[in-house]
């Protein structure tokens, strides 16, 4: 983008949106929140925002402080997506969302992705988002331990559940579960992910 993030220039900030895990929203109605925040984001689409809220089943006339944590998060995610920034950072976006809301979240994100947006999601709950991800980066203490596209990973590794003890013994990684052993093996047969 050609900016130094540390300088936090307005031109950079209006093209980046952050949905933190611990977030703050002011004590105002949704309408007021949009009217005073949206002018700062040139790509904001009111129509998109209303559509996302509808998909999340959030009534527009609600005050943000009267909402539950999950509802507030859905308003923030809707606003973040409607801002149409080039970069959208989400930290544990599915935390605090119930099963129904997680499903709505996946649907909304899948519909919002396009070539002009880069959505970076930091999560411990990969299961919630696995169908949306096209690149995985594992970071530990600020160091990148792993950074591969899903296509690269699936061409080299196979992930499956196995009841065969021999399979489990030969696996690169295995984890016992109620359904058997979840194993990671070399993808010798060129299976899909």
């Amino acid at each position, binding site marked *: 983008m050609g900016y130094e993030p540390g300088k936090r220039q307005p031109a950079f900030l209006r093209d980046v949106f952050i949905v933190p895990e611990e977030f703050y929203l002011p004590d*105002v109605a949704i309408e007021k929140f949009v009217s005073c925040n949206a002018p700062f984001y040139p790509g904001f689409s009111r129509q998109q925002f209303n559509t996302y809220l509808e998909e999340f089943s959030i009534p527009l006339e609600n005050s943000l402080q009267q909402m539950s944590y999950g509802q507030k998060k859905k308003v923030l995610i809707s606003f973040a997506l409607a801002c149409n920034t080039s970069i959208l950072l989400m930290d544990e976006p599915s935390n605090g969302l119930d099963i129904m809301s997680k499903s709505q979240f996946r649907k909304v994100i899948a519909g919002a992705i396009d070539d002009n947006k880069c959505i970076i999601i930091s999560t411990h709950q990969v299961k919630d988002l696995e169908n949306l991800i096209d690149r995985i980066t594992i970071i530990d203490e600020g160091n990148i331990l792993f950074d591969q596209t899903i296509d690269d990973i699936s061409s080299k590794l196979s992930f499956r559940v196995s009841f065969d003890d021999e399979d489990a013994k030969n696996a690169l990684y295995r984890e016992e579960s109620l359904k058997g052993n979840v194993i990671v093996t070399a993808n010798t047969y060129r299976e899909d992910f």
Partner: protein
Amino acid sequence: MTANFSFKRLAQLIAKQWIENRRMYWMSALALLGLLGIVFTIWAVNGGKQYNEEVPYVIGLFGLFITGGVFASTAFNMLGTKDKGIYWISFPASHLEKFLAVLFFNLIVFSLVYLLCFSLLKMLAESYIQVLIDKYPGEYSYRKINWSRDENFSVVLLNFIYAFFAVQAVFLLGSVAFKRFSFIITIVLIAAFIFSFIFYITKIAKAFPDHNFDLFTVSNDIPGAPALTRNM
């Protein structure tokens, strides 16, 4: 207008800050009116029979320093918590615009609201005193300040107002520097600074025993030097 400053964005930021905090601002204004009202009521009811206009100004100045300090120490409290800090820092406006928006509310709006509350309450208290004077002529009196004659008072008042802006600046700095209890910590630091300053001046005064030099008065007795004058 530059990449980091735009009047339009500043106006939008001020509007946003007003919309998001107006409930708190209204409550603060009411609390201010209530607190000043209590002090003015005590003065009007128990102020004796010879009222003096200097008293409300002294009350006003003390109130200005205390409430101004409290308000200024909350100016950057958005930076005190992670969630609010991210919301504030990641918002698309420059540091300068955010700072000016805070200054707008802390210096301009606060000062105007304080002046309005003070003037209103002073007027009400004076009206009450006037009623007493009319009802018991000769018993009650109200000495008004003669601004052209009481030169010292107007100088002191002006200097206190300058000092208010300096103190506001310190409390604003305190609200950025300290995450919690910024008001109390800033007061402690100001007190420490003042005590250190007094200690330092006292030491200097002792080093020059032949000169009339103390904390509150300075006289120029250096041979050949021009006399100290004050331009009004």
